[in-house]
């Protein structure tokens, strides 16, 4: 079972949301095209089908900075320890780790860097 991290802590899925409250975006999706649904969503999931596919990082920034989305922004798919720091910096606050990742070791990934230029 994949591990869920929220607020830099390992958590269990607390409440089941109605599917109308969850929006799932693929890398090729345009957040602007689903802005209405995002405005009503309690959770937006962005899928990372491959380790090296970086489109979801731009989607996260657009959701946070352009569409004013304040709810849970969850990275799903190939979410690995080595991505967590950058994912968080782009606005993700929830991470569904892929199978096989050691969750406790993964938590240290948030602390890879203690400063940023941007």
């Amino acid at each position, binding site marked *: 079972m994949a591990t869920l991290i929220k607020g830099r802590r390992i958590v269990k899925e607390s409440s089941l949301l109605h599917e109308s409250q969850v929006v799932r975006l693929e890398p090729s999706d345009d957040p602007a095209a689903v802005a209405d649904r995002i405005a009503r969503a309690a959770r937006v999931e962005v899928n990372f089908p491959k*380790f*090296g*596919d*970086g*489109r979801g*990082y*731009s*989607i996260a*920034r657009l959701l946070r900075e*352009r569409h004013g989305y304040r709810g849970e922004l969850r990275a799903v798919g190939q979410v*690995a320890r*080595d991505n967590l*720091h*950058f*994912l968080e*910096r*782009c606005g993700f606050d929830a991470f569904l780790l892929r199978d096989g990742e050691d969750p406790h070791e993964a938590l240290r990934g948030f602390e*890879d*860097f*203690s*400063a*940023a*230029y*941007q």
Partner: protein
Amino acid sequence: MYRYDEIDQRLVDERVRQFRDQTRRFLDGKLAEEEFRALRLRNGLYIQRYAPMLRIAIPYGLLTSHQLRKLAEISRRYDRGYGHFSTRQNLQLNWPRLHDVPDILAELATVQLHAIQTSGNCIRNVTTDHFAGVAPDEIVDSFVWCELIRQWSTFNPEFSYLPRKFKIAVNGAEKDRAAVGVHDIGLHAVRRSGSDPDFPGLGSDPDLPNEVGFRVLIGGGLGRTPMIGHVMREFLPWRHLLTYLEAILRVYNRHGRRDNIHKARIKILVKERGPERFREEIEAEWAELRDGPGTLTEAKVIEAQSRFTRPAYQEMGTDPVYFSAPAFLAWTKRNVHPHKVPGYAAVTLSLKKTGVPPGDVTSEQMDAIAGLAERYAFGELRVTHEQNLVLADVRAADLPGLWREARALGLATPNIGLLTNIISCPGGDFCALANAKSIPVAQAIQERFDDLDYLHDIGELDLNISGCINACGHHHVGHIGILGVDKNGEEWYQVEIGGNQGGTAASPASLGKVIGPSFARSDIPDVIGRLIECYLAHRDSEAERFVEVVHRIGVEPFKEHVYGNAHQGPPHRQREFIAA
């Protein structure tokens, strides 16, 4: 000289720690090969033909003697006693061991060097004019703008997994010495009013900051689909530099192709969309970012500018140097360059001595060059994209002394700008991608053209060699370009002429044209000889360079001179036609 701050040091140290952990997990079998590949590449580490290769960043080509001594020590201890300066102002080690790399990076960090983003599908370290800050034709000090771009692009979380590598070059002078036309983004400074020497980063009166800006070219690049960049903006005011770059990178990150590695560079996106439509997309994205938090302020520019110290120049006359040894004069003609401060000069130390692979230096030479930099150039040097080193601030009166020492070290070959100043990739002797060797070709050409008088008579000529279509040796923009190709397991060489890396408005960047069927390696010196004969027969004066003659009369006369009657084929040797 570049000054690092605490944040720079901390990030570099943390990067070492992160990579040490990634390497350990890989060696323990906890990190998949493919993922470690993506992670090691962004730390400059390749797995090559015979060994790993580590590409160390030399930001903007700027290096202190202290750092060069550390590189000498590392190359001696962890490698085989030499390093290779590349066309991207980096230093490559060809023989490190994988498990040593974290230690090498930790050693580098003690002198604020690193290998961050020297490879991988991310924004690579930015390159610039090796005469930045000292060139008489300076518009702005490009180091300042490179520094702003470095900070913006280093560990930029949004652009860490781009479709493909991404290279940005900045040129701050009238003449383009950074080859901005063949980069993913090329920035060429433009100024609309007089400069203020107290504020070189802006180059103009700070009360009129919008007078400085950049011509923005997008979609240039070499490789298997060479293209010259399209001008997306004739004038981008400096304040908007980073938000505009962000708009470009975001459009590319979201829409660049990820289905085919050979179509993943931004140049393909520009081509597929068409420059006009691409410009509209950039402008639409930028409209949202413009004047936002990424907008530059005078304070930010001044902060970046404060990272660079200038030497304490002495006031000196401009008396000529009275030393008339012919060899010295030949050297001053080719390897000594004008300086914006009277009484000073910039000097190129040639790494293109015949018999030495272009761009290679031994550990001993590194130590000795560090000494030269300390004695003659305020302890600073630069790496050029033509794979030479520059001492940027040499007193004119010291030139004879420097020349004697450099000559004793084999670093005073007076060939800068000439045919034997060959740009070459490491080729099949080292690189896993290469189809053919490049270094022996370079050496054979250098041996053939070792008569200095003849070389000087031929005049300026860029000859570039790549061992495969990835074009690391920039063959497309050599006045003569040589490309190694594989044909049924054999090494063949295709020859192009008429390429130009750019420079002036009168001689802009252009791509070479293939002259015809490819050649065996042993034929190459003869082929170059025939091309030169044809050039000398057609030039209207000594002032007309090889590339200008090619552009004036076209490829055909050269082709005929090389192949004889093209329809009958070559006289003595079977040649294969390799489609361009």
